[in-house]
C-alpha cells in the first residue's frame, strides 16, 4: 500500500510540474459557471466578461470610461434637438458564420436588446423607432433627448451586442455567432469553454485602451474554466494549471507577490455592495427607521468581514469613488455614523414597536452573508430586532420582487458609467424610492446634455439619497486577480478580456 501511494505521489508531482501547454493557449479560471451565453439578458459579470470575446457592441469603453467606436464607424450624429441619432456603421464586418453584418442585423439586435435587457428599461419608453439608414448606418428616433445613450450602448453589462438576425429568438439566442475576435469552439458546461481565434475578424483601429482600440488576437485559444472555489483557483494558479485567475482571496496577495511564478493583479474600487431598503412596504417605509438603520451600521466592520483584510476596501459612502468623473461629497456626513445613541433616537421617534427587521440575503455570495451578520449585530446593538432571511440566489431574486417579503436585501453593483442608468435610484425599481424632488432631478439628469450641469444635478441626487436612504452603499471593494508572471495585455477593469493578452515566452 505504501509503495502504491509513493508511486502515485511521484507520478503526480511529475505531471504537475510539467504544466506546459500549446503556445498561445491561455487557461483562465473563472469564479463560476457562465450561466448563459446570451449577454443581452444578463448583468452577471462572468457572463459579460466571457461573451465579450464573441460579441461586440457599437461602442466600447476606453480607460477613462469614454465610449469609443467599435462596430460603429464613428461618433453618433445628433439632430432634431438630440432626439434623432444617426450611427454610422463599419463595413466589411463578418459574423463568425461568414455572413456580412448588415444594418438590418444591427436594427434587429437593438430591438431585441430593448425587449430583454435589464439595463434598457429606463431607455426603452423613450425609443420611437430604430431603423436602417442604407447599408451603413442606423437611425434612432427618441421622444426626448437622452444623455446616457452612448454610455448605455457601450456598457458591457446586459449590453446591446450585434448578432445576425437568424439567431435572434424570443428566448435566448439560438447560437453563439457574433463579430468578436474569438469564436466559441467548444463548451462543456461546468468544465471549460474553448474560445479560438476568429480568422475573419476585422479589428477596430487605435491604440488598445481598456475595451476600446485594436484587438490583436495574440492568443490562438482562450480556455475559460469555471472554478467556484477560491482556494482551488489559487492553488491552480500556483501550480501553473491556470495562467490567469479571477476572484483570488485577499489573504493570498503576498503569496502571489513573492512567488516566482505568479503576480497579483489588484483592481481598486472594483464594485460596491449595497443594502437596499424597501420603500414600498414594511418597516423601512418609515423615514425615521431608515435613518436609524443608516446611523446604526458600521460600514468598516462590515467591509472587513466581507473582504477579510483592511487594506482592500475603502469605507467610502459617496456613490462614486474618488477620482471618478461622477464623484462628489454631497451628504457624505450621513455615512459611517455608527452611533447607537443617535440611531436609538430615530428608533424612538419612528415609534419602533419591536417588529423584526428582515434582512434578505444569499449565502451564494459569501460576502453578502458576512456583511449581513455584522449588520445584524450593530442593528441589534441600536435596538432593532433583526431576522436574517438567508436563501439561495434564485429565491432571493424572486422574493425581492414581493415587497411583503423583506425590509432590506443585499446586492452589489459595479460603478455604472452614467448615474442616470442606476436602477436603484429609479422610482419603479424593486426598492420603489419615490420622491418628487428626486424624480424631477433624475429626469433632468437624463435629458440634460452638458456634463458640468449634469454633475451638479447628480450631486443634488446624492444629497437626497443620503437624506432619504433608498439604499446604503456600504463602501468600495477592491478585487484581486492572479496572473502567471509575464502575462501582458490584460487591461485592468471589472471585466477581464484577453484579445490583446500575451503569454510569456
Amino acid at each position, binding site marked *: 500500500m505504501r509503495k502504491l501511494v509513493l508511486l502515485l505521489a511521484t507520478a*503526480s508531482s511529475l505531471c504537475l510540474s510539467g504544466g506546459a*501547454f500549446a503556445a498561445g493557449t491561455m487557461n483562465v479560471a473563472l469564479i463560476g459557471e457562465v450561466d448563459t451565453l446570451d449577454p443581452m439578458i*444578463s448583468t452577471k459579470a462572468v457572463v459579460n466578461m466571457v461573451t465579450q470575446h464573441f460579441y461586440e457592441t457599437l461602442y466600447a469603453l476606453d480607460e477613462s470610461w469614454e465610449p469609443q467606436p467599435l462596430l460603429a464607424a464613428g461618433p453618433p450624429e445628433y439632430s432634431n434637438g438630440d432626439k434623432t441619432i444617426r450611427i454610422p456603421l463599419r463595413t466589411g464586418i463578418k459574423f463568425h458564420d461568414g455572413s456580412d453584418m448588415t444594418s438590418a442585423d444591427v436594427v434587429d439586435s437593438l430591438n431585441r436588446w430593448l425587449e*430583454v435587457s*435589464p439595463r434598457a428599461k429606463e431607455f426603452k419608453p423613450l425609443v420611437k423607432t430604430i431603423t436602417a439608414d442604407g447599408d451603413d448606418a442606423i437611425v434612432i428616433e427618441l421622444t426626448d433627448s437622452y444623455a446616457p445613450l452612448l454610455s448605455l450602448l457601450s456598457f458591457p453589462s446586459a449590453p446591446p451586442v450585434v448578432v445576425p438576425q437568424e439567431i435572434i429568438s424570443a428566448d435566448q439566442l439560438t447560437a453563439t455567432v457574433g463579430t468578436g475576435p474569438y469564436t466559441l469552439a467548444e463548451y462543456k458546461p461546468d468544465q471549460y469553454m474553448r474560445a479560438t481565434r476568429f480568422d475573419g475578424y476585422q479589428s477596430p483601429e487605435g491604440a488598445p485602451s481598456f475595451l476600446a482600440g485594436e484587438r490583436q488576437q495574440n492568443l490562438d485559444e482562450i480556455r475559460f474554466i469555471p472554478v467556484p472555489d477560491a*482556494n482551488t483557483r489559487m492553488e491552480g494558479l500556483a501550480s501553473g494549471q491556470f495562467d490567469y485567475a479571477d476572484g483570488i482571496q485577499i489573504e493570498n496577495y503576498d503569496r502571489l507577490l513573492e512567488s516566482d511564478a505568479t503576480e497579483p493583479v489588484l483592481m481598486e474600487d472594483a464594485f460596491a455592495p449595497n443594502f437596499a431598503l424597501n420603500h414600498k412596504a414594511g418597516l423601512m417605509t418609515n423615514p425615521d427607521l431608515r435613518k436609524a438603520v443608516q446611523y446604526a451600521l458600521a460600514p468598516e466592520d462590515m467591509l472587513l468581514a466581507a473582504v477579510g483584510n483592511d487594506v482592500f476596501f475603502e469605507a467610502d459612502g459617496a456613490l462614486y469613488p474618488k477620482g471618478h468623473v461622477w464623484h462628489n461629497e454631497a451628504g457624505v456626513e450621513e455615512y459611517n455614523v455608527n452611533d447607537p445613541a443617535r440611531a436609538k433616537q430615530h428608533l424612538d421617534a419612528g415609534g419602533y414597536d419591536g417588529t423584526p427587521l428582515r434582512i434578505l440575503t444569499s449565502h451564494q455570495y459569501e460576502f453578502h452573508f458576512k456583511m449581513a451578520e455584522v449588520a445584524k449585530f450593530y442593528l441589534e446593538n441600536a435596538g432593532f430586532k433583526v431576522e436574517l432571511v438567508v436563501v439561495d*440566489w*434564485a429565491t432571493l431574486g424572486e422574493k425581492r420582487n414581493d415587497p411583503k417579503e423583506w425590509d432590506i436585501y443585499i446586492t452589489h453593483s459595479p460603478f455604472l458609467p452614467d448615474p442616470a442608468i442606476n*436602477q436603484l435610484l429609479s422610482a419603479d425599481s424593486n426598492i420603489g424610492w419615490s420622491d418628487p424632488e428626486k424624480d424631477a432631478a433624475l429626469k433632468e439628469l437624463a435629458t440634460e446634455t452638458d456634463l458640468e450641469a449634469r454633475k451638479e444635478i447628480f450631486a443634488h441626487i446624492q444629497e437626497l439619497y443620503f437624506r432619504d436612504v433608498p439604499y446604503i452603499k456600504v463602501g468600495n471593494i477592491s478585487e484581486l486577480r492572479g496572473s502567471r508572471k509575464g502575462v501582458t495585455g490584460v487591461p485592468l477593469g471589472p471585466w477581464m478580456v484577453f484579445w490583446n493578452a500575451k503569454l510569456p515566452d
Partner: protein
Amino acid sequence: MVSYLRTRLLGMVLTVLIVLVFVFFIARLAPGDPAELLLGPDASAADAEALRERMGLNLPVPVQFLSFLGQLLRGDLGTSIFYRQPVLEVMAARAEPTILLTLMSLAIAVTIALPIGIYGAYRRGGAFDQGAVAVAMLAAALPNFWVGLLLQKYLGTDLGWFPVSGYGNPDASIWERVQHLVLPSIALGFAQSAIILRFSRASMLDVLGDDYIRTARSKGISERRVVLRHALRNALIPIVTVIGLSFALLISGAVITERVFNLPGVGSLIVGAVLRRDYPLIQAALIVVAALYILVNFLIDMIYLAIDPRVKY
C-alpha cells in the same frame, strides 16, 4: 419462481411510478425562480416575468405534468433550462468522474475492509478485531466532507502528493484525471469501508459458526483450507449484497465529495441544478438515480437467487 418474478417486476413498476409522481411535484413545489438566476443581480420583476413566459414556466402545473409524462414515454427526459441541452446528454457528459469516483472508492473500501473484517472475525475478540471494529465505528462517524477537507489540506496542499481539487485541464489524460480522483476516493472510500468491514466480519462470523465448517475441521482439513476454501466462499455471498446496497450510500457521498473536490460529476450537477432551480435536470437526475438503485437491487436479488442454494422463493 415465475410468479415471484412477476410480482417483483410489478412491484418495481409501481415503485417507479410513485418515484415519478413524487419527483415531478417536488420540483414544482420549489420556491425560487430559474429566470432570476439567468438575469443576474441587477434585474427587475418585469424582466423575470418576461423571461419565465419565454421559458414556458408559466403553464398550469397539470399541463406541465402531462407533457412531462408524455415526454417520458418517448424516452425524452426534457431539456435542461440552464444547459439548454437534453438532460440525458448533460448527465452523460458528467458521468465519467462519478463512475470512476464510485468505482475507485469502492475498490479502496473493499481492499481495506474485506481482509480486515474477515481476519477480525477469524480472530474474534482479539486486539486486532477490537481495533478494527473501533476504527470502523470512527470511520462511520466522521463527516465525509470534513475528512475531504483535511485530506485536501494535508495530502494535497501541504505534502503536494495529489492534486487538491478539480478534474484537470480539458486536455488532461485519463491518468491525470485518475490522479485527481485519488483524494476524493479515499475520503469516500473511508466511510464506505466502515460498512463493508462490519458486514464482512458479521458474515464471516456467521459462516464460521455453521455446522459444515465444524464438520470440515473435525475431518482434519487444514485450518488454512477451511477458512479460505470453505468459509470465505460462503461468507462472500452476503457481502456481495452489501456492496450493491452501498450504491445508494456512495451516491449520497458522491454528492458531497464532488462538491468538496470541485469534481464535475453527476453529484455536483444535481446540487447545482437545485441551486439553479433547473427543474427538468433535477427531475431527470432523481429519476435516473432511483431507477438505477431499483435496478441494481433487482439484479442483486437475482444474483443472490442464482448463487445461494439456500434461498428459495
